[in-house]
């Protein structure tokens, strides 16, 4: 198989593998028969089955982009201190599942000694889910991994402890497409200037009808530039969303200066208490400042502090703001409210205050 073959090998279309083969036997035995769980300490869960059996989960944060050394290190710890069964959460935290309570403490110690961080459960700030950035994507305005590493350095105590009113789910994305999704707090790229067009390349690289169709505000028109077919952008219409860049890289939206970060809050996708909510813009114009993006982290910390001090138990960030109102959110966080906070996209009217429910 190491040699290229004459007739190429046909793939085995096995699709999604069965997880049962990799599942801890206690979990297999008690599948669908779990009674309750407890949270003995940050980073540790104890699930008890109706059968009386129990499974302990120890959760640790990593750097998401794992090198094989790190993977082997994690496996080694798993073999030595746990039962050799792991899983990864949707936030790229690793979970070790062990049947024996006595293995929990040594496992934690081994993980921490090896530089991993135990925590991220329950009402902590768990790992920031994020995206590819300059390391791999073709359209990024920043480096999500870098932003997250720098931020987690400062939030690590909130990962290790459960001192927040409720779970905090943060996400970071490296362009406005926002593969990282919404979050209690989301740190996303926000472009501020229309794309500059590299007219020389358009004719070769760009499917022009496709890109014209892609623009949500119809700001792109075909045009002849220096006699060659190219495009032009109506800068008054353009909302700098960057949607034209992926199908047409000559429409350069990324800019060392004008590509900024923005911070959004209140996305909550669980159905707990209220219905799922979208996140809302609270801060923009934040410098895209590698290697450590201190301005973004500072704002995130300010929001977290206000939330921690003011919210009630079990209030997610959106629940908290709904109770105290947006005027007070801006007051408590010291963030400015500007005309950019007022929606003007389709359906904007639904976001206007059509009532005298007013906060003083």
């Amino acid at each position, binding site marked *: 198989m190491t040699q290229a073959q004459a007739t190429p090998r046909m793939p085995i279309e096995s699709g999604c593998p069965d997880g049962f083969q990799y599942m801890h036997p206690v979990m297999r035995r008690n599948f669908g028969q779990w009674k309750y769980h407890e949270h003995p300490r940050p980073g540790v869960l104890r699930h008890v089955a109706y059968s009386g059996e129990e499974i302990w989960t120890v959760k640790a944060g990593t750097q998401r982009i794992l090198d094989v050394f790190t993977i082997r290190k994690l496996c080694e710890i798993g073999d030595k201190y746990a039962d050799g069964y792991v899983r990864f959460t949707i936030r790229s935290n690793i979970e070790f599942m062990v049947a024996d309570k006595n293995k929990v403490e040594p496992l934690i110690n081994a993980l921490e000694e090896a530089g991993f961080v135990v925590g991220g459960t329950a009402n902590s700030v768990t790992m920031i889910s994020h995206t590819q950035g300059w390391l791999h994507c073709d359209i990024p305005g920043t480096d999500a991994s870098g932003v997250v590493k720098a931020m987690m350095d400062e939030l690590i105590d909130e990962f290790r402890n459960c001192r927040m009113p409720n779970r905090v789910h943060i996400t970071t994305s490296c362009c406005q497409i926002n593969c990282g999704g919404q979050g209690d707090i989301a740190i*996303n790229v926000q472009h501020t200037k229309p794309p500059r067009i590299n007219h020389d390349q358009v004719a070769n690289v760009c499917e022009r009808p496709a890109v014209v169709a892609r623009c949500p505000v119809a700001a792109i028109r075909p045009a002849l530039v220096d006699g060659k077919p190219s495009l032009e952008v109506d800068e008054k219409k353009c*909302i*700098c969303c960057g949607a034209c860049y992926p199908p047409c890289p000559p429409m350069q939206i990324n800019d060392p200066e004008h590509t900024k970060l923005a911070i959004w809050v209140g996305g909550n996708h669980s159905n707990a208490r209220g219905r799922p909510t979208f996140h809302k*813009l609270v801060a923009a114009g934040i410098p895209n400042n590698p290697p450590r993006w201190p301005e973004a982290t500072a704002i995130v910390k300010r929001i977290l502090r206000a939330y921690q001090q003011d919210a009630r138990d079990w209030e997610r960030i959106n629940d908290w703001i709904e109770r105290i109102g*947006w005027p007070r959110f801006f007051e408590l966080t010291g963030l400015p409210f500007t005309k950019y*906070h*007022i929606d*003007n*996209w389709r359906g904007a009217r639904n976001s206007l*205050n059509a009532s005298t429910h007013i906060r003083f």
Partner: protein
Amino acid sequence: MAKKIHETPMLDELEKGPWPSFISGIKRLRDQHPDERIRGVANDLLGQLEHSYETRKGYWKGGTVSVYGYGSGVIPRFSEVGDAFPESREFHTLRVQPPAGNFYTTDMLRQLADSWEKWGSGLITFHGQTGNIMFIGASTDATQHFFDEINEYGWDLGGAGPCVRTGMSCVGAARCEMSCCNEQRIHRTLLNRFTDDVHRPSLPYKFKFKISGCPNDCVNSIERSDFAIIGIWRDNMKIDQDAVKEFIEKKGRQYVIDNVITRCPTNCMTLTDDDRIIVKDEDCVRCMHCLNVMPKALHPGDDKGVSVLIGGKRTLKIGDLMGTVIVPFMKLETEEDYQKLVELAENAIDFWAENGLEHERIGEMIERIGLVNFLEGIGVEPDPNMVLHPRQTSYVRTDGWDEEAEKWFRRKLEEKKQAAAG
């Protein structure tokens, strides 16, 4: 009566039942009124109405009728079946502005009835849905006469067509403990500033003012007016703890918990073990519910003023709109305060007159151009109370962020200074 009385078998059905019958009223005019003209009008009106009931269709059409000097205030109606019902062939309505708050003495009612009997059908509605006294049923000739007569003793027409319409205000401070403003003064200050725009239609479309003394909004101003002024207070609500105790004694603790404490939309009330009510006023959104349930114990604060919401209307042509908060709070005490309110209305109407499309209400224009453009057009700064929440979409160009942020901080500083000074 000489003429044949129309048969009205269907309408007769509406004389049955205990609720006062408008049909019986019209029949009284037909059968008992001393003036033959009125008897005749009532008879033919009933005839045409019966015809409508039978065929399930209306038979009026519009036209152009007005009084000298005005372009509006009369709703002209000409019958499409006037040959069959000639005496009510012309059946116009005069829309007359009521006094702010809808107050009347019986003397004045009689005087109005007398004048109307002289010129019109004898049918009056207090009031139409916009708030006008509707004198229903005048011939084209009589219209001017009737107007001249009542105009002499203090009454003026309201609006119709693309103009400022008759306003409406709740009973408010005249009788109601919830009132946070002088509804009648606001009503008259605004309406009488725009008298010219009431009488001479030249705006993109209609424009309505409505004034409620508190957020209970007894005149539906948020939904039914272009410019809603609603009384509200800014400081803490006033709690009479003795009255609270009295209320609890009468109704029981559970009643208060179930009907007051747990019904607060922001959960900002606590009932203490010793039967006091504590309100976290910074979370209170002045919804009025608790005050409504316990009007003796809970009252609006002392720092009263109004909120202004712009853009409400019913359904044509983009769907119903409610007004949006444009001014979260303004005082209305001094002459200058009132002047500021008038200026706001002027700015809004001027901007709309320039930028609204034909037949486009101000709320529809705001929907079309976006709230921010409207705010900039009338010179009002953005405020978080204008929105339920900040934007959810990233489709926005934020290149002026720093300057806008700067403006906000300057404003806040200014406010602080003023608060410290005041």
